[in-house]
C-alpha cells in the first residue's frame, strides 16, 4: 500500500495537500456514482418533477408509486418484471453453473492429467479467445434455428460451455494444488473422478466461486445474445425486458428510473456479496504475480 506516499509528510502544508487529494478522490467517487444517485432520486419523484429545475436530486416527499407501477401492483399495466427477474435468475444461474462445471473439468485435465495432445489442445483453447462472439453469432443463430433452440433459454446457456478465461483460471488454481495429495488418494484406491470431486474441487473452491460470480454477472448483463435468440416476450431476460419497457414508456422518466433501479439492485447485491472472489478473478491474466 501507499507506494507513492511521501515520507515524513507531517508539515501542515503537506497535510493540507493530502486533505485536498482525499477530497478530490471523494469527488471522483461522487461523480462516478452520480448517475445512480440521480436514478434513485428520479425514481422517487412524481413525473412532473423529474426534469423540473430547483427540486433537487431527491424530492421532499415519499412517492413509491413508480416502483409499484413497474412491478404491476398499481396502474393496471403488467410489465411482467417479476417474470423477467425469474428468467434472468434462471439463465444466469444455469449459465454460470455450466461455465463453472465445464471449465473446472477442463482446467483439471490440463493441470493434472497427462495425455497425448495436451499442449496442442490447450493452445486450441487459448486460440478461442481470439474469436469474437460476433463472428460466430450468425452461424450460431442459423444452427440454433435449425435445431429449434431459438426462443429457448438453452440458446443463451449452452454457449457458456466454452469459457476460456474460466478454464485458464481453473487450470492455474489446480496447478497450485499439491501432487502428493493426489498420489496419496490414488494409493488409497480412489478413482480419478472421486479424487477430483472429493479432494481437488474443495481445495480450489475460492477460484470456483470467482468463476461463478464472474460468469453470473456477465450472463446477467448479457444483451446482444438475448436480443437475437429470444423474441418471445415470455422468455425475456431483464435487459430485454428493460429495453422493451424503455421503448414503451420513453416519456416517463420516473417510471424508467424505477425500472432501472430494480434491474440494477440485484447485481449490486451479488457483487457486494461476492466481490472478494470476483475481484480476485479479475486480476488473472492482467497482473502477473
Amino acid at each position, binding site marked *: *500500500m501507499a507506494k507513492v506516499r511521501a515520507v515524513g509528510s507531517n508539515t501542515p502544508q503537506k497535510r493540507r495537500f493530502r486533505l485536498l*487529494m482525499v477530497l478530490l478522490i471523494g469527488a471522483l*467517487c461522487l461523480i462516478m456514482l452520480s*448517475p445512480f444517485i440521480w436514478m434513485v432520486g428520479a425514481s422517487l419523484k412524481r413525473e412532473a418533477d423529474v426534469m423540473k429545475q430547483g427540486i433537487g436530486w431527491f424530492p421532499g416527499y415519499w412517492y413509491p408509486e413508480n416502483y409499484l407501477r413497474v412491478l404491476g401492483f398499481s396502474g393496471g399495466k403488467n410489465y411482467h418484471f417479476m417474470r423477467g427477474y425469474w428468467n434472468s435468475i434462471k439463465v444466469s444461474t444455469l449459465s454460470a453453473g455450466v461455465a463453472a462445471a465445464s471449465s473446472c473439468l477442463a482446467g483439471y485435465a490440463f493441470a493434472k492429467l497427462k495425455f497425448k495432445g495436451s499442449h496442442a489442445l490447450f493452445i486450441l483453447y487459448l486460440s478461442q479467445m481470439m474469436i469474437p462472439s460476433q463472428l*460466430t*453469432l450468425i452461424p450460431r443463430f442459423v444452427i440454433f434455428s435449425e435445431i429449434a433452440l431459438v426462443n429457448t433459454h438453452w440458446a443463451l446457456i449452452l454457449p457458456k460451455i466454452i469459457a476460456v478465461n474460466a478454464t485458464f483460471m481453473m487450470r492455474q488454481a489446480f496447478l497450485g494444488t499439491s501432487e502428493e495429495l493426489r498420489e496419496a488418494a490414488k494409493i488409497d484406491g480412489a478413482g480419478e473422478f472421486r479424487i477430483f470431486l472429493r479432494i481437488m474441487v474443495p481445495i480450489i473452491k475460492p477460484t470456483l466461486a470467482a468463476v461463478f460470480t464472474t460468469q453470473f454477472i456477465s450472463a446477467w448483463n448479457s444483451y446482444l445474445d438475448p436480443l437475437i435468440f429470444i423474441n418471445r416476450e415470455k422468455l425475456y431476460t431483464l435487459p430485454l425486458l428493460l429495453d422493451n419497457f424503455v421503448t414503451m414508456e420513453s416519456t416517463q422518466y420516473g417510471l424508467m428510473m424505477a425500472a*432501472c433501479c430494480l434491474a440494477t439492485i440485484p447485481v*449490486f447485491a451479488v*457483487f457486494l456479496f461476492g466481490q472478494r472472489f470476483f475481484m480476485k478473478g479479475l*486480476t488473472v491474466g492482467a497482473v502477473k504475480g
Partner: protein
Amino acid sequence: MTKIKQEQKEWSVETSLAKGRQQKRRREAGMAYAFLLPSLLGLLLLSLLPMLISLYISLTDWVYTNGLWNWNFVGFQNFIDLWSDSWFLKSLGNTVIFTVVTVPVGIFLALVAAALIDSFCGEQTSGVVRIALYMPHICNIVATSTIWKTLYSSYGPFTNLMRALGWQDPPKFLVSYTWALPAIMLVVIWARLGYWVFLYGAAMQALPVDLYESASLDGASGLQKFRRLTIPLLTNTTFYMTVTGIISSFQVFGYVNVMTGGGPKDSTYVLVYYIYKLAFDYRRTGYASAVAVVLFVLLLLVTVVQYRHNSRKD
C-alpha cells in the same frame, strides 16, 4: 538353463510392469478426454464450426430469407463491395475513432485515479473507493444506457450541468450528428474506469516497496516517483489494458443500440451494430458475415501484436 529361465522371468516381470504403467497412462488419458469432453464439444460445435461457416458464408450472397443452402458462391465480391459501402466505411471510421479516444483517455484517467487512491487512501478506504468506482462496470448496459439517455435529454441533469458551466446553448447530445458519438464515448469511459482503476490498483500493490524507499531517500518527490518509477513499472498492466481495451472497444454494441440506435443518420454506426443491422434487420447474412470477418481480422492483428510482445518478454 536356470539362467535363461531367470532372465525370461525378469523380462516378463518387466513387461508386465511396463504394461501396467502403460495401462495406467492410457486410463489417465481416457479420463482426461472425458473431463475435456463437454468443453471440447462446445468448442467444436459452438465456436470452431460456426467460425468456419461464417468464413464460408462471407463468400456467398446469402440472404437469410431465401432459406438454407440457397446461396451463390461469389468469391471475395462482398469484401470488394465493402470498400465502396459508405455505411461500412462510416462504421469502421467510428469504431476506430471510438477506440482511439476511449482507450488512451480511459487509461490516463485510471492511472491518475489509481495513483491518487494508492497514495492518499488507507487500505480500507481504498477498498471502498474501488468498489464505488467499480459499480458502473457491473451494471447492465441497458440500465446504464437508459440512465445516461435521461441525463443527456434536453433538460436532463447533464445538459443542465453544461448550461451551468457556461455552455450557452448545449445541443441535444444524443440526437446531434456531431455530439452523439462523443456522448457515447463518455459513457463507455465512465463505465470502464472502475475496472481499470482496479487493475492498476492491484498492480500497484505488487510494486517493490524498497525501490520507492530508496527513491525517497534520494529526495525524489511524489510526482517524480510517479513518473520515473510507477509508470515504467506498470508497463505490462498498461499494455494488457490497451489490448483488452481495443478489443472491447471494437466490439461495442449495447450502448449504441440503446442510446442512439446508430443515429442520427450514420453518426454512431459502429462495426458490431452494422453487423447486427445487416444480419438481423436486412437479413443480408452473407454480407454481414463479411463485415464480421473484417472485425475478426482486425482483432486478430491486435492479438498477434500482443502475442509477439509477450513472447519477446519471455
